[in-house]
């Protein structure tokens, strides 16, 4: 091999190596940072992990939102119209958080089966329904 070719080969190997490392890195960290989505029914039936963060989506049950104590902690029930799970969240709720609205919460289950949310998301559209919920309600939606 001529020296020029050797250099070219080294360059190509370096690039391939770089890309491979990058892709490896990406897949590994992707694997660690994926959040799975569960409905309240799935959570009740024990399908959700107990040691990992996950997302739960559903409708906020009418009349269930209350603040125990005088801090920023708020409690509400989240339902998929079959089962509901108690959600606890400390912090400021998004503008479009309302009873009867679809929301998504990120968080973990505690020992007594309550969902401790780290983040509550309600999208900025009065008609928003979490896509996952929209699937569940497909029949209803199309009947309208």
């Amino acid at each position: 091999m001529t020296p020029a070719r050797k250099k070219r080969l080294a360059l190509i190997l370096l690039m391939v190596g770089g890309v491979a490392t990058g892709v490896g890195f990406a897949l590994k960290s992707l694997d660690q940072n994926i959040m799975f989505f569960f409905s309240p029914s799935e959570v009740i039936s024990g399908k959700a992990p107990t040691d990992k963060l996950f997302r739960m989506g559903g409708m906020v049950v009418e009349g269930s939102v209350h603040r125990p104590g005088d801090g920023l902690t708020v409690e509400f029930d989240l339902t998929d119209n079959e089962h509901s799970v108690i959600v606890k969240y400390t912090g400021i709720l998004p503008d479009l958080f309302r009873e009867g609205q679809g929301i998504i919460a990120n968080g973990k289950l505690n020992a007594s089966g309550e969902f401790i949310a780290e983040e509550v998301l309600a999208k900025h559209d009065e008609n928003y329904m979490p896509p996952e919920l929209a699937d569940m309600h497909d029949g209803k939606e199309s009947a309208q």
Partner: protein
Amino acid sequence: MIPEIGQFALIVALCIAVIQALVPLAGASFGIQRWVALAVPAALAQLLFVGIAYGCLTWAFLSHDFSVLYVAQHSNTKLPLIYRISGVWGSHEGSLLLWTLVLALWSGAVALFTPGVPRVMRARVLAVLGMVSCGFLLFVIGTSNPFERLLPAAAEGSDLNPLLQDIGLAIHPPLLYFGYVGFSVAFAFSIAALISGQVDSAWARWARPWTNIAWLFLTLGIALGSWWAYYELGWGGWWFWDPVENASFMPWLIGTALMHSLAITEKRGTFKAWTALLSIFAFSLSLLGTFLVRSGVLTSVHAFASDPSRGKYILGFLAVVVGGSLALYAWRAPLLRSAAQTRLLSRDGTLLLNNAFLSVVTGAILLGTLYPIAIDAMGGKISVGPPYFNLMFISLTAPLGVLIGIGMLIRWKQDSLQRLFDQLKVPALLVVALALALSLALPQWLWGAFLGIAMALWISVTAVITIHRRFHNRALLSTLRSTPAGFYGMLLGHLGIAVFIIGITLTSLYTQEKDLRMAPGDSYTVAGYEFTFRGVRKFNIENYVATRGSFSVRSSDGGFQTDLFPEKRIYLVRNNPMTEAAIDAGLTRDLFIALGEPLDEQGAWAVRIYYKPFIRWIWLGAIIMAIGGLFAASDRRYRSLSRRRARVSQDAARQVS
């Protein structure tokens, strides 16, 4: 009547676009000068008619014509004038019309401002732009007609989404579109060159200023979006790795890579194939962004009410554009082989590495963005959060920071390790020492802060050396005059990165955040600033009701004092609540207060307080980068060279005819 004129103008524009796409191309292939000459007037006529259509829609907004469905859905008699103008692109149909208009504007600019480009080449470029335009006009007319009538007319419109009633968001989409669509010009130049099979480095020189301008618009558009999210959404964040943000960031990254590879191709005549490929990717990612936002596969602030036929159309269009141009590329790429060797230890080599890193980062972001969609198609539900993107982005762009410094000082073609080491050892030590001193002065020692500061200093110090080397031992005035604008553009672009790095490093690491309950009279201290809540009052303003909180802020040494008035607004037409944060902006820190919700009858509120150090530097950095892009694009050598080219091409044209 006016809406029908708009609709008709769109159809005429489509007919012209078809002519623009086919006739000049055929003329160029068969050597028919008259057909080639049609390209410029066709592009200008198309601009005229798309402009008329756009004007008609704007008129419908201004005159409250609620018999137009789109206007009835997105406007209101109480809507202030400026938001009636920006309301045109406030939702799907109108923003696609804006897309088409911007494309027509770019085509018109190519038609008028490329005096040096041979006529045949220009005709091919305009034909490619015409094809893209056909695709979008068909899309607008077929699936997203903004002029659809609502009969009987609504008595009152249902108002523009309150989130969009903001000056930052009024100009964010046009800037972004000028960037997105601007990459179509570089794309068209590449495709035209591939079609003709004449791929010399001239096309790189022609495409360069256009790419720079598109890039600078995209930079400003993204920065403006980030700034808007910061003050308008009330979360105090400036980037969320939202899929739609990613959709705009990926073309930016590839566009950045493209600017650099165009530099090598122009200067050294190498990497022609790679440059052509990048320009295809940059535009394809812009289209992908449009697909992601418009098809409704994503739900986000940006994803307007969607309709599956639209998603299918864009996906099909994307497949045609990407598939077609890649097929053309595969067919023609062997022509692009260059004779010159590239050595790693040269400016060519560092630019190549820059391209490699930028492409890999883009790939990683693409993976994280599309993965949930792919899983969703297979019936799973997952989401990929910011930790993934942060890890990938930071670990892959950190080497780029080091490369910027080396890249500015290394020689073209071939350099020696010894020479580089001799040059860089003192600056490197200086940077480490300075960074150490600066990060020890911060409230808390953090490795991340040290690395970020060192990176920013490294870029700044090497930039200073670069300037010094150019002006050292030379007459200042004549050197100033002979230094190309592109040199300053390069420096500003890189210094913008340094400023940006300082901003993100310090903001991410030293932000202090507190959500708390405050009753009137309560005080709370964050980062040496004491915030006192004085209570709320209600105000009625144009189209909303505001509950305005009143806070006084005082630094503990008493040297600083101000009042802040965050608001909770209810927009009356849609009964939408909105948080309007109050921000005291400063070069070294922002103080940010947002009202949450009322907690009890005694007037206590949930309140969010942020102390954000150096956050302005993020957008400041972006502005400096954009100015750099402007300098680079204005380099006189594009003009003078194109004049010289013009003579050559006239001779060539004479030979053809």
